[in-house]
Every structure is written in C-alpha cells, then in structure tokens.
C-alpha cells in the first residue's frame, strides 16, 4: 500500500472536448504515465470554465486546478479560448494578489495531437503541487474528511 505519510494531491483538470480531452485520450492510447491524482472533467470549450468552478474545486479540497484548451487560434468555436485566456489571467493574478500560491493554478494549451505534452504537463503540475503541500489557504474545513 502507499505510504500514508506521503502527500497525494488532488488535482482537477478541466479539458476542452475538442483538443485537450482528445490529447488526454492520446496520452492514454500511447500509454504515457501520469499520476492518478489527476482527474479530468470534460467541458465543451475552455471558455465554459467559470471561475466559480475553480474556486469550488479548491473549496471541496482540491490542491491544484489546471485548465487545458486548444491552442489560441485553433479553438473549435474559433474564439472561445481567447476569452478563457483573459479570464484565467485575471483570476490567477487575483488569487496571487490574495496570497494564494500561484503554482496551484495553471492554464496549458494542449492540442489533440499532443498526448506527450499532456502527460508531461500533468507530471510537472502534480510535482509542483506536491511540493507545495496541501491547500490550506483556500480550504473549506467543512469539506475536509
């Protein structure tokens, strides 16, 4: 069994249906390993991700949240990720301003062909969040078990 003392972060990954979710599938098809701590939620487009979802994840105990979408210019809906880019830039900047560790949030553009990039990104992100330890600054104590 795993070491009880070893911190296993909870990571929520929002992936757009057209590029990044397919990229994640490709990582699977190519059997590229990344930690089981990452759980993917499929959304139609990165622009569907409301800042509320990200805060909600932290509230419910997530230690890191990552948003993956099509590369700018490749959005299935032509412009969705441009809006997502602005929204997330401002949100992350605000979280940083409130003193919340900025390494807990990330946006990464992953195309349907970039299975390797998806796996590498997840490995990197999990490592960064593990380093930080449990999310204390945006936790909701009632949601801890």
């Amino acid at each position, binding site marked *: 069994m795993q070491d009880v003392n070893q911190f296993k972060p909870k990571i929520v990954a929002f992936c757009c249906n057209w590029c990044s979710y397919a990229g994640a599938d490709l*990582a699977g098809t190519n059997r590229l390993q990344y930690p089981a701590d990452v759980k993917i939620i499929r959304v139609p487009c990165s622009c569907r991700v409301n800042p509320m979802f990200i805060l909600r994840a932290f509230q419910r105990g997530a230690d890191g949240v990552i948003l993956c979408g099509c590369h700018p210019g490749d959005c299935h*809906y032509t412009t969705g990720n441009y809006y997502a880019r602005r929204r997330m830039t401002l949100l992350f900047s605000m979280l940083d301003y409130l003193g919340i560790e900025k390494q807990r949030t990330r946006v990464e553009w992953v195309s349907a062909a970039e299975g390797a990039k998806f796996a590498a990104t997840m490995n990197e992100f999990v490592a960064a969040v593990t380093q930080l330890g449990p999310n204390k600054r945006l936790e909701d104590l009632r*949601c801890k078990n």
Partner: protein
Amino acid sequence: MQRIGVFVCWCGSNIAATVDVAAVSEALGHEPGVVFSTNYQYMCSEAGQNIIKNAIRDYQLTGIVVCSCSPRMHEATFRKTAASAGLNSYMVEIANIREQCSWIHKDKAQATEKAIILGRAAIAKVHLNAPLTAGESPVTKRALVIGGGIAGIQTALDIADAGFEVDIVEKQPTIGGKMTQIDKTFPTLDCAACILTPKMVDCAQNDKINIFAYSEVKEVKGFVGNFHVKINKKARYVDATKCTGCGECTEKCPMKKIPNEFNLGLDNRHAIYIPFAQAVPKVATIDPNACNMLKNGKCGLCAKVCSAGAIDYKQKDEIVEREYGAIVVATGYNPIKLDDYDEYAYSLSKDVVSSLEFERITNAAGPTGGTLLRPSDGKHPHTLVFVQCVGSRCSAEGKGKSYCSKICCMYTAKHAMLCREKYPDTEVYVFYIDVRSPGKNYDEFYRRAVEEYGVHYIKGQVGKVVPRSDGKLLVQGSDLLANEQVHIEADMVVLAAAIEPDKSARPLATMLTASMDTNDFFTEAHAKLRPVESPTAGIFLSGACQGPKDIPDTVAQAGAAASKVIGLLAKDKLTCNPCTAHSDEMMCNGCSSCEKVCPYGAISYVDKEFRMPNRTTAIRRVAVVNEAVCQGCGACTVACPSGAMDLKGFSNSQIMAEVDAICKM
C-alpha cells in the same frame, strides 16, 4: 430522484488488467440513486448493449453511467443503445476509465480507486441530467451566391445543376468578374472570354438561376437553413425588362469622356454604357455621376433614341427581400493600388502599368484593339521589363501584403511569352525573387517562356525606375546570381501587383458573422479538412475571397462549395445540437455581455413584460438564444454576471457536481 444503472466495461483486458472492474461496479452500486450495477467484458458489443437495454427496462432506469473507453469513442453508441430502450439519449454519461485511467496507470489499487472516483463523478452528473431533444429547423431550398465572378458563376451553375434555385448578387452591372478583363489564361493560353462567356450565358439562361446584377447585399438575418437577406438593386435608370442591349443609346450619349472602368481607365466610355459586348445581363446602365440629365435635368438624348422606351430617369433603388438556406461568399479580389510604390514611377509615367492593365492592352477588345502599344505615345515598345512581387511578400510595416499573391509568377510568364510570340523584335526581362510554379504543367510553362521564347529571367529586384525625357524608362535592378547591378533602358514596365480581398468583404463578413483573418481573407472552418466552409454554419467560401487563387483552383473550390451547399439543401430538416445555451429570463439583466462573446451571433434581445409584485408589470430587456445557431461552446455562460445563462448538458450545477465528486475522496 433518478434511478441510475452503472455498467462497467472490462474492454477485454484493456481495462480489467489494471482496474478491478468487479470492485468498481460493487463500489458504485452503493452510490445514492444507483439501483443497478454490473460489469461485462465488452459493453460495446451486442451482448453488452443488450445488458444495458434489459436493465433499462427491468429496473426502470432514468439514467445510465457507462464506465468504459473515451466518450469520443463510444458515447454515440451508448446513446443509441439507450434511445432504442426508450431512454433519452442525453441521460447517458461516460466515465472514461480506459484512456484516462487503466492505460496510464500501473498500480492496480490506484487505478481502481481512480476509476471509482471517475464513476462517482459521472453518477453525480447524471443525477442532474435532464432529457434533451434535438430541435429541428426547416431548410429553405435556395442558395445565395454573393459575387458573380468565375467563382460565383461556377458555384451557381453547379447548385442549379442539382436542381436547386440560386440567386447571384453582383455589384457590377454585369457578371463575369475579373476574368472578363483577362486576355489569355495560363498554362494553356486559351482565351479567357472564350471559356467564360458561355458560362455567363448559361447562368442567364438557366431557369434555376436568378441574377441580381448591379445589386448589393444590405442585410443578412437568420441562420443556417433560414437566412433572410435584403438585397439592394441599385437604380440603372434603364428598365432591364425592356432594354434589348442594342447600344443605340451609348452611341448617342454626348458625355463621352468618362474613364472606362472595364479598361481600367485606359480609354473612355459614355455616361450610359454597357461594360462590354458579352455583358450578362446585356442591359445599359446610366452612370448617375456622369449623366447630364440626372445631374442637371438637361439632355434626355438616350430616352429619345431608345426604341424600346427602356430609359427611366426616375428609377429608384429597390430593396428585394429573399429567403435562403445557404450563402456562398465569392467576393473575389482586386489588385492593390500602386500609387505608393514611387520607386517604380507608376504615377509618374503612363508606360509603367499594372499587369491587369497590361491584360487590357493586349486584349483584342481592349483600348488598343489588341496591338501592344505604349500608353504614352501609342508607339510599339521594344524593351519590356516585368517586375514581380510588387507589394507581395512584404512583411515590413506599411510596405504591402505579407503573403504571396500566388498567381503573379504564372501570369507574368504568360505575358512575357505572349510578347515574344507576337513581337519577336522585343526584348523581355522579368525580375523575380522566386519563381513559384507548382501546379500541373505550370513549371513547364515557365520554362517554355525561358527556353523557347527567350525571355530573360533575372533573379533580383528592381530598385528604381526613372522616366527619362526621351520617353525611355531607366530601370535599375540587381542580378543576384551575376552579383551585379543591371541598368535597362525600357519602353514599358509592367508591375505584378499584389492582390487583396475586395473591399466589400469586411462589411459583408460582419453581416454574416463569418470570421476573417488580418488580411481580410475569409477564414475556413478548418484549414485542411473543411476548406470551403466558414466556421459559421451555412456560410460557404468560393474563390479568392478565401485566399489568392488562380482560375483552376477557383473553379475547383467553387465546385466544392457547391457540393457542400447541395448537401445542405438536400436535407429537409436540420437537426440541432441540443446542448445549447439558454437564458433564465427571470435573472437576465439584458446587459449584452453574452451577445458580445458569442461567436455565432446566436443571442438576441427582446423587451419582455414581467409580472411584478402588487399586480404591476415591468418591461425588461432579456436575452434569447437561437438554439438552431448556438453551437454550445459556453462562452456566454461565463460572461453572464448574474448566472442567468447556462448550458444544457454541461450546466453549472452538473460541472460543480463533478468537481464535488472528484474532490470528495
């Protein structure tokens, strides 16, 4: 409360080898709302699907979760399975435990734990799923083609050939476009008019095709299958139904000094004119800026000589409203203005001409009757210099277009070759950066110009052209291969001007909510796989409006666009994506944030009366989503500050339920 069934797939050993499938179905069976849970070797097989169908019936399931491969693989399969058992297909959720679990993990305990969590997230989502029905919208079986050049003509002919009605809107008095001005076509050197004019006549004679010449699109409303378009038929001051095109009026018209657009101002036309002999429709048009009768009320000669009584000085612009199922953009291109390239002395000397002007000078129907004569003194030129890439491939700010105009290499080779063929006493020089000749028989064509016709190709550019008082043009250029500067005393210089999209394209794109690149070329839905469709459903692209193209490419794309249109018009109804945005009008502020981020123009606003406390009413502006247009990206849902806008199938509460399930371990 939903009654949920869970079906865990082994996928042979693909899943079962790393995920304890029995443990997963056991664990998920205890989740609230789950009334049935099982696992099977291949859920997507017929036997597997039967397990699902039987369970739906036996346990009166209201929702199902399939833990299997990626939804991109088999979501459609399981939706069909559910539907065949009488369950709404949008009550199905997939937990991806293969690509995103068993295939990427080695530790069975970890993978099993993750599979259970992914299953729980899917269950949490299904709890909040609601049955969705894909809407249908009817299709108006008529297409609109905007632009009557070779692209528009070919598209219209192909659509009409399939039995559908087509309207062509052309802003000039005649259809035909740029190709009418071209003399010969590469690489076969057949005459452009000989191959184009029969097609123009076909258009006019085809009873499925309706030509709105001298008209412009004013307004486009609606969506795929149901466009509503307003077309402005500009006043010609000639009754097109009466005019026979005899040309009597144009001969008698006293206003003779109007620069002739068709010959690019190289000669003159009358105030009442027919652009050229083969014009379609062959109807005279009065230029209101030149006609003395329209300007000052004096003259009226044309009305006197017209035996058909077609002249109508009181004619007004007329708005025609038409319904269409599909719209094809074929707005074409124009050569750029050359006035700013002062190094080539274009505006200083009449003998420095653009390539399109050169086409007119060599055309039998042109100002010189097809004899190559210098515009300045009408003398036969002996030395001609052609300069390529004028304004093309200029990435420096303000110098021109950054792209390659694609057609110039070939038409310059054509011009050079024709010069040498008709006038063996000429010396012809071509300054080039690269000769781009990919295409069937293209490189052979270019080589013929060099090898058979003795055209001098010089690798390098022209630095300056100085008109000399004796009428010669001093051309200074570089020959990079010889590493020397060359000086040529030329009689004529021909500039291969870059081409750019027609100016009407951008306002049109706004009307159509179709996207454009920074050069004002229309963007395609996918650069490789959907090259003739715009990202906006129901809008198709034909010809140079999408990017520089020669005639064969244009005709090919025109046919491709037509086949896409035919595919659309052949349907009686369009099924819509049911996962669309919808606005809760009780919460909507009417602030227009959602409308601004919608890439499809699917959101509009209405003033609606609401009941308020104490038997009062209030009128509020609220958003309405057109579900036939909405593609379900969800951009609006986040732009909305009040949370009135939500997305079916991916609602706020569904996504948050998934978040909760994943984080609760």
